[in-house]
């Protein structure tokens, strides 16, 4: 083959041209990686442990003798295995992650560093309280931030994630009703709510009734007010709601709910839009969880861990769960079951989980809050809302934004699939085409109140240049879809580590753990 002076072919390559198929299945930096069960062996290990000293066993016949089936790898091979896997993942660190309702913002690395200080990470939850005063002080300080930012008098720190916080709040509501001998059975949930809301209410033993949305994407206030009565225990409402809109009637609703003897639970998943600008306490909310992994940027970690502290109104505060931290006499006290009665917290619903909550997330969230300060957090909300409106107004002419006419959105912009009508392209196709352009798709098909929903939450940590590129890309894709290039969308993504995965097969014949190929064949027969 003739080459140029710089070593490039001087003519098109013929039959020897790479076909797209390689011997290894790898393609340059895109490396295929088998399962550890296919590459390791039970005899291989990546740790060196001290020899076991002679001893007489105390297991008396209960020793595990049969093989367990756990392969090991050397340290180097372990690092390679998981590094290769990591490269098949999209993360915020790679680009915009506009997943509506999830608040995928930059995760500052100072948060990670602080959470790893041995004084926070390497302490045991049952150490004597005098030996963990710094940890209790941190929880107390974070509680102060949360109460101040929400304008609420009390906070429960132990819930482990948003849905666990919902459970905490709804249990307190149920306990409050029972304390006055009022056994109410119904919880009202707007149809735009996160699925966790009705699931939580049902988990607490309530019957769930939907409240429709109005034509402006808000909860239908008159329908909600009309449904209030002696049997309604609470209303669960998300504000800003899942259409990315502020519920302007929340205070009116809250007053009516209270007059009817019920409580307002607010899903605080979207607190990022209003932090520092609006205090939910001023809107009549009785309980609200705060997803520290959303608003306060403790990382999502591929699905967790989260942390979902719940702020309470004075009416519900006595029912808050155990344990909690109190400051007195220059010390920080952990109030647990034992001290609860003495401390007049005997009406608490009790304990929600072992120990004292997600300490590692507390450290990250407090680090984030201190870094921003009260002024920075207000700027967070403003920039998050600004970015979302910028996207909404820059795309509303080529995509369809069902509630754009009703005014500004909050921190997320909602589109439906109206603009794809007759193009043969679905919301799913459109999302997969975004993957080829190097973006994580937005939330698809949620909320349920619009058809083929696409919910875009850019967050405040995206620059204008990033947004402009994102907007230009979506405009381009929308125009291609309308121009009849549907086929390219149906088969997208083309450039991801995998093309579209068969979810039907996965559910019909679930394979949930690895089996040797021979066993798998047997199982299939």
């Amino acid at each position, binding site marked *: 083959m003739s080459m140029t002076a710089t070593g490039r072919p001087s003519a098109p390559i013929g039959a020897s041209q790479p076909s797209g198929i390689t011997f290894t299945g790898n393609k340059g930096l895109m490396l295929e990686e088998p*399962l550890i069960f296919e590459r390791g062996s039970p005899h291989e*290990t990546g*740790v060196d*442990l001290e020899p076991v*000293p002679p001893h007489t066993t*105390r*297991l*008396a016949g209960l*020793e*595990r003798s049969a*093989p*367990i089936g*756990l392969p*090991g790898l050397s340290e180097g091979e372990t690092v390679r295995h*998981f590094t290769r896997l990591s490269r*098949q*993942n*999209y*993360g915020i*660190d790679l680009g915009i992650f506009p997943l509506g309702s999830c608040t995928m913002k930059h*995760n500052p690395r100072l948060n990670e560093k602080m959470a790893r200080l041995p004084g926070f990470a390497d*302490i*045991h939850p049952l*150490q004597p309280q005098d*030996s*963990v005063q*710094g940890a209790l002080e*941190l929880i107390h300080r974070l509680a102060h931030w949360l109460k101040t*930012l929400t304008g609420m008098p009390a906070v429960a720190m132990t819930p*482990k994630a*948003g849905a666990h916080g919902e459970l905490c709040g709804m249990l307190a509501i149920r306990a409050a009703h029972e304390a006055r001998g009022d056994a109410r059975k119904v919880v009202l949930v707007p149809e735009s709510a996160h*699925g966790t809301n009705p*699931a939580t209410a049902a988990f607490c033993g309530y019957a769930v009734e939907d409240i429709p949305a109005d034509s402006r994407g808000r909860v239908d206030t008159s329908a909600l007010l009309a449904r209030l009565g002696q049997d309604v225990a609470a209303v669960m409402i998300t504000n800003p709601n899942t259409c990315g809109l502020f519920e302007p009637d929340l205070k009116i609703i809250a007053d009516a709910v209270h007059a009817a003897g019920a409580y307002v639970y607010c899903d605080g998943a979207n607190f990022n839009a209003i932090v*520092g600008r*609006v205090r939910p306490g001023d809107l009549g909310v009785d309980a609200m969880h705060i997803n520290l992994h959303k608003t306060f940027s403790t990382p999502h970690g*591929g*699905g967790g*861990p989260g*942390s979902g502290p719940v702020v309470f109104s004075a009416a519900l505060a006595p029912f808050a769960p155990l344990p909690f931290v109190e400051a007195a006499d220059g010390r920080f006290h952990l109030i647990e079951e034992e001290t609860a009665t003495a401390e007049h917290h005997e009406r608490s619903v*009790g304990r929600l*989980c*072992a*120990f004292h909550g997600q300490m590692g997330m507390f450290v990250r969230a407090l680090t984030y809050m*201190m*870094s921003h*300060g*009260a002024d*920075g957090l207000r700027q967070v909300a403003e920039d998050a809302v*600004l970015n979302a409106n910028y996207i909404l*107004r820059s795309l509303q002419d080529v995509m369809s934004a069902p509630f754009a006419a009703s005014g*500004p959105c909050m921190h997320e912009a909602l589109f439906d699939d109206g603009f794809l009508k007759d193009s043969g392209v679905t919301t799913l196709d459109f999302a997969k085409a975004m993957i080829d352009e190097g973006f994580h*798709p937005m939330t698809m098909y*949620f909320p349920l109140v619009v058809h083929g929903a696409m919910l875009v939450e850019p967050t405040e*940590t995206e620059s*204008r240049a990033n947004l402009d590129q994102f907007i230009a890309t979506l405009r381009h894709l929308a125009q291609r879809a309308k121009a009849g290039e549907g086929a390219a969308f149906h*088969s997208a993504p083309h450039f991801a580590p995998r093309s579209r995965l068969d979810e039907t097969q*996965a*559910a019909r014949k679930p*394979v949930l*753990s690895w089996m040797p190929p021979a066993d798998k064949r047997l199982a299939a027969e």
Partner: protein
Amino acid sequence: MRYLPLTAADREAMLATIGADSIDDLFVDVPAEARFPGPIADLPMVMPEMLVERDLARLAKKNMVAGDHPFFLGCGAYRHHVPASVDHLIQRGEFLTSYTPYQPEIAQGTLQYLFEFQTQVARLTGMDVANASMYDGSTAMTEAIFMARRITRRGKTIISCGVHPHYLHAAQTLCRFTGDQLVTGVPTLCSAPPTDDLADIIARIDSDTSAVVMQNPDCFGHVADLSGLAAAAHAHGALLIVVVTEVVSLGAIRSPGEMGADIVVGEGQSLGVGLQFGGPHLGLFACNHKHVRQMPGRLCGETVDADGRRGFVLTLSTREQHIRREKATSNICTNSGLMSLAFTIHMTLLGETGLRHLAELNHARAVETADRLAAIPGVQMLTPRFFNEFAIRLPVPARQAVRDMAEMGVLGGVSAARLWPQLPDLENVLILAVTETVSKADIDALVRALTEVIGSEYSGA
């Protein structure tokens, strides 16, 4: 502000694009009385990284760090050495800053490790399948009780008094409202020496019983053979739920699956996660094939892509809240994703050989510590059959002994009174966990401290 990229000029230009005069125009839907004119008072303003770090480091220094002292606490949280590569790998941004893998084409990294995690947990527990994690062991146990109710359609659950009291309390909190009946007793196994309460529990199983919940090793460290109990439960159409709070024990003790468990839940923090003052930890949840559709939480399954290549997706999601809403098996959404990655990496580094070695090392150190403590005059051993945790009775109240030892720089276990404050019988009981992190010098320091504490209080009493 270092995390906010918009400049003042950007903001102005963007407002112009939007057609708004000021940022306040975007908050018009907020009622006037709820609008805050400026930053909320009573909180500090923006702070440079260095100062935040300095302030929090000062707070961290006020705590007694486990690794700096002879350390013997367990009771649901165990201190093990975590290899350096675990923390390095979980901090890769592609793992750390990713979301729940709802777009599987660009989340195969997360999905594949979840599949590996599920397989490892299933094998460790001796079950067919495991889910992609729960919040922690305690919440997993409550979910198991509800799952058993869905399967058996019965409402009564018998809970062993050897179950961690926090786990029991978490279940009681919910069951108070769901109508599930929980039957439990006081820890009879602590009438010295402890005895199995298995016979007592078997006698209580009847045709209304949905499940029996046993912790193994239990909260006092006692290890039991649950096979007979499993058979008795099954004979009545009830399920056996086994709780494991120390997963390293599964490298030494016959698995719950081998003993006949129907659901196994556990706390996985021993591998990869660390103490973390109690959270985030890692809830494990495993069962057999026939019950998989009643499971709570996410499940990752194998499938193929459009080109026939193997890949992984979240599956059976019709059990979950985002599809089924009020009919879901659980309300759980966010779980312990990154902690399950840490677990899987640590487990991969260990392999079966390493896990068995680690478990044996834990057992040997615990045996040595137990024998040394039992030789102290006035100390009575309460747990003849144990893995790496055991209970002893002191001649003095254990709570004060723990505080006094801490004053002497030794974190010498958990007093039973911290967990069962209402039981005077347990006032003098001390529970100690001994892992591979404990050195000979640590054991010497413990023996010295305990001897001194007992001695001084004995003579003072």
